[in-house]
C-alpha cells in the first residue's frame, strides 16, 4: 500500500470504538499516548483464544495446550521480526514498559553496577523510567544523573557528554517523549555509550507504533515497549535484551516456567527467554498482540510514519494559528504529540469541556513531573495522534478549542 492509496477511513472502520458517540458527539480520540484503541482483529483473536483453545502453555501436551503454546510463541516470533532482534530468545514478555524497566533495573544492577557507579537518565523521562532507577540507586548507593533538556524540548547532548565519567555504567533514555513528542537522537547517544562501555536501555513506549525500530541497527542493549500503546491489549509488554547480557543476568521473579530443576538444595534456571517469564503469563493478550503487530505490518511502518507526519504538520500549523495557545515542546524532530496550555483556561477545565464535545485529550503532568517542574508548569493539556486520526478531527478540535478561548 503506498501513501497515495492510504485511506484513514478504511482503517477507522477496523476500530469499533471509533463509531461511538461520547456525550452525543462523535468520539474524537486524541489520547493515544496514554493508550491506543484496538482494531477488531485484536479483539476477535482474544475472543477466539478464550472460546476455542484456552489452556495453560508450555507444559501441557494435550491439543489445546499445544495450540495455545504455538500461538503464544508465534507472537514472540513476530515481535522478534518486528524489532529485528537476532533471536527470539531476546524477546521477553512482561506486563508493559514499566515492568520491563523494573526487570532491567533489578536484575541488571545486581550483576553489573556497584556502589559509587553512575546511571544516567534525562529530565524528560516518564516516571516509569525514573522511579525504578531511584529505588535501585538508593538501595545500592549508586549515583543517578540527569541530562538537561532545552526549552524547546530537545535533549542537551553536550550536557550528556559532560555527564559521562569512567563511573558511568548505564544510560536509560526515552526514544520519544510522551509529553513533548521529542524524538531523541538515540542512535548517536548509543554510539557514544558504546565507546565508553556504557550499557544502554531505550524506553520505546511512545516510539514503537510510529516508526520502525531496529534494535540491531540501534545497537542498544535493551529496548522496552508496551503492547497497549501499539493497538494491542493491555497487560503485555516486551523487554528486548542482547542475548549475551540476558544470559549473564540473574532471573527477576521466581516461580513456574522459569526453572529447569527445582530442588530444596539447588535450583537451576531455565534457558532464555523463559528464565525471565515466571508463572502463567498473560496468554490471551500475548496472542492478541500478534494481531496488533499484523495490523501495523499490513499498513507498513513507512506508510504510518508518512501519514502521521503529514497529520502532525497539519496539526502543528493549525494549532499555531490559535491565539492564546502555548505549545510545550518544539523539537525539530518530533511526532504528533502536542502538550499545550491556554491562557486563562486551566487544562483541567479544558479537558472536561472538550470531552463534552466528544474529544478525548489527556491533562495533567503526564507522569513527567520533573519535566513539568523544569518548565514551571503543573500540567498541560495533551493531544496525541495515531494512525486512525484525521485532518477533519483536527479541524473539529481547533474549532471547539477556539470557541472555548473566545
Amino acid at each position: 500500500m503506498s501513501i497515495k492509496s492510504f485511506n484513514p477511513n478504511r482503517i477507522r472502520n477496523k476500530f469499533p470504538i471509533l463509531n461511538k458517540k461520547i456525550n452525543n458527539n462523535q468520539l474524537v480520540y486524541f489520547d493515544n499516548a496514554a493508550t491506543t484503541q484496538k482494531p477488531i482483529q485484536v479483539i476477535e483473536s482474544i475472543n477466539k483464544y478464550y472460546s476455542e483453545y484456552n489452556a495453560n502453555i508450555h507444559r501441557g501436551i494435550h491439543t489445546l495446550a499445544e495450540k495455545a503454546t504455538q500461538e503464544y510463541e508465534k507472537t514472540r516470533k513476530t515481535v522478534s521480526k518486528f524489532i529485528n532482534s537476532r533471536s527470539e530468545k531476546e524477546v521477553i514478555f512482561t506486563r508493559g514498559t514499566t515492568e520491563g524497566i523494573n526487570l532491567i533495573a533489578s536484575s541488571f544492577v545486581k550483576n553489573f553496577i556497584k556502589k559509587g557507579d553512575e546511571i544516567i537518565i534525562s529530565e524528560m523521562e516518564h516516571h516509569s523510567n525514573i522511579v525504578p532507577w531511584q529505588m535501585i540507586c538508593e538501595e545500592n548507593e549508586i549515583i543517578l544523573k540527569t541530562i538537561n533538556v532545552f526549552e524547546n524540548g530537545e535533549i542537551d547532548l553536550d550536557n550528556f557528554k559532560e555527564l559521562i565519567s569512567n563511573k558511568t555504567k548505564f544510560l536509560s533514555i526515552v526514544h520519544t517523549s510522551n509529553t513533548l513528542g521529542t524524538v531523541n537522537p538515540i542512535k548517536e547517544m548509543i554510539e557514544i555509550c558504546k565507546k565508553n562501555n556504557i550499557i544502554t536501555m531505550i524506553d520505546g513506549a511512545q516510539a514503537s507504533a510510529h516508526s520502525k525500530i531496529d534494535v540491531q541497527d540501534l545497537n542498544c542493549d535493551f529496548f522496552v515497549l508496551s503492547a497497549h500503546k501499539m493497538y494491542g491489549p493491555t497487560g503485555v509488554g516486551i523487554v528486548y535484551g542482547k542475548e549475551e547480557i540476558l544470559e549473564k543476568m540473574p532471573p527477576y521473579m521466581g516461580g513456574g516456567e522459569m526453572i529447569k530443576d527445582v530442588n530444596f538444595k539447588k535450583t537451576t534456571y531455565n534457558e532464555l527467554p523463559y528464565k525471565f517469564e515466571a508463572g502463567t503469563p498473560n496468554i490471551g493478550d500475548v496472542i492478541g498482540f500478534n494481531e496488533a503487530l499484523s495490523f501495523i505490518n499490513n499498513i507498513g511502518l513507512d506508510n504510518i510514519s508518512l501519514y502521521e507526519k503529514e497529520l502532525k504538520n497539519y496539526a502543528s500549523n493549525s494549532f499555531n494559528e490559535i491565539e492564546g495557545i502555548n505549545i510545550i515542546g518544539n523539537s525539530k524532530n518530533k511526532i504528533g504529540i502536542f502538550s499545550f496550555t491556554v491562557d486563562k483556561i486551566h487544562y483541567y477545565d479544558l479537558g472536561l469541556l472538550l470531552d463534552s464535545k466528544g474529544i478525548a485529550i489527556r491533562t495533567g503532568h503526564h507522569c513527567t513531573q520533573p519535566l513539568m517542574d523544569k518548565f514551571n508548569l503543573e500540567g498541560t493539556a495533551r493531544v496525541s495522534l495515531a494512525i486512525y486520526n484525521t485532518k477533519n478531527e483536527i479541524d473539529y478540535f481547533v474549532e471547539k478549542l477556539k470557541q472555548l478561548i473566545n
Partner: protein
Amino acid sequence: MKSTNSIQKDIISNFQTLDDDFEMILNYLIELGEKLDEFDVEEKKDDNLIKGCQSKVWLSYKIIDNKLFFSGDSNTSITKGLLSLLIKVFSNQTAEEIIKTKLFFINETGLCRFIGTQRSNGLESMENKFKIIALSNKK
C-alpha cells in the same frame, strides 16, 4: 435555615432540569463557581489548601452564632463550581449538623462523574476538609 438534606434536594432538582447533558452541567458548574464570593487572597495559604490530582482548592471559614460559614476558591473553574455546591450545603450550619450530614446529592446528580477513583482526592478530600473543620469546632 434549611437543613443540609433539603439543600441537597434542591441541588438535585436543579440538576434534573439539565437532563444529564454533560455540556450544560459543566457550564452550570462554571457559572456557580463564578458566583462564589471573592476569596480573600490572604487566605490562599497552604493551611487552607486541598490538593487534588489536577486542581487546587482553598477553603476558609468563619463562625457566627455557632454556625459555620465557608468561603473558597479553586484554580479550575469546574472544581470551583463543585466547591460552591459543598459550600452551599455546609454553610450556615452548626458543626453537629455538618458532621452528621451524608452527601447524597453527588451520586444522584451524576456529579460522581467527577470523582474518578484516584482523583477522589478531589471531591472526597473536599468533603473531608469540611468535616474536619466542623469536628474541630464542635462543642
